[in-house]
């Protein structure tokens, strides 16, 4: 994953509300990930159109955090999900 990559949730992976526990979750084949506030904020911006750079700039503005640090964290987070095949690169 690089700043120019465009992440997307592949078919069969989706975010949702766990209304019983009051959490956001990421659901995929045999996987349930409980999302914290940061994970939810990242994945809400994963739309198959925006690059990791654009997503990170938006997050940095929203949370008043340094852009470079945010970008590194976003790449690490999404690369980990990509290894589990829960995120793909829309740009191939």
């Amino acid at each position, binding site marked *: 994953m690089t700043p120019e990559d465009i992440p997307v949730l592949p078919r069969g992976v*989706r975010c*949702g509300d766990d209304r019983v526990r009051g959490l956001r979750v990421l659901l*995929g084949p*045999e996987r349930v990930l409980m999302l914290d506030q940061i994970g939810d904020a990242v994945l809400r911006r994963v739309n198959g159109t925006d690059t990791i750079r654009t997503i990170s700039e938006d997050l940095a503005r929203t949370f008043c955090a340094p852009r470079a640090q945010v970008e590194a964290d976003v790449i690490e987070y999404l690369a980990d999900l990509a290894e589990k*095949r829960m995120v793909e690169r829309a740009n191939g």
Partner: protein
Amino acid sequence: MADLPLAMLAELTHRCPLACPYCSNPQELTGRDAELSTAQWADIFRQAADLGVLQLHLSGGEPASRRDLLELVTAAREAGLYTNLITSGIGLTPARLEALDAAGLDHIQLSVQGVRAELADRIGGYAGGFDRKMHVADHIARLGFPLTLNAVMHRENLDDLPATLDMALRLGARRIEIACVQFQGWALANRAALQPSRDQVARAKELVRAASARLKGQLVIDFVPPDYYSDFPKACMNGWGSTGLNIAPDGTVLPCHAAQTIPHLTFENATARPLAEIWHDSAAFNAYRGTDWLPELCQSCDRRDVDFGGCRCQAMAVLGDPGAPDPVCRKSPGRAVLDDLLSQETVDIAPPDFVYRR
């Protein structure tokens, strides 16, 4: 207060065109006349979602043997559940797959009995099954369904592991379960024929380790080892009554699919009592919940909260005592019984023939 379940396995039917010798369904199957109706299943799906279940696994038997499979998937999605179909593929025509696609089925888990028609059809006890399955797999890929291959491995096919991984890649699967047979249900009748050798298991573990690294980001490999060769038991169901439940074809609510082998437990039916009450309050779900019930050997063990004493049904099947530590555990007195079984059943002679249900 107990945790809430995340996943529910719905055994829609015990009917199945295949007759795999390792079938995990009970030795006594539930007949078609006793199966729940479409409306009864839909009600259970809604109750499950209200209780906290997020993922639903539609299984069997062969779930495609239910003529109302489409209605059941629709009901599951309307209840808000992530819906997974666990199937042999037999009975899934292109038209049915397209309808399931439109209904929002999230994921398909396709079983494979072997990578060669001759072996696969002998294992499944169904001539022509392999070719039909490969056609179904093509349609699954054409429709873009996320696919997991579920490869049940044993003495006769564990050496085909590399070809099995190749098949997963060829069919476009994102994930493969290399699931070595667990000895419950009908599989117990074929244990000696199915138990792999220690050498086979060692080679398989090394292959899986290398393939997992090589295929990182391309194919997710989940490996379920044959636990008779493990030193410590599996954390069965991640703890009894902690994260999952199972509904039998007639609506009986079970803490795991083999729980009915434990003779002193009685199980309640989802058509007679609300699912939430059965989960929280029934004697069967509370029998082995948590760790308070564990014997002293497990209470004082540093793995108490790792494996919760292992599998109750395995303690029942091997030792006849569902309250004993899982005999897989090296620290348990039951391990000697398991080692005796292993040395009797994996001697270097031709394995016995499979015993089929029919």
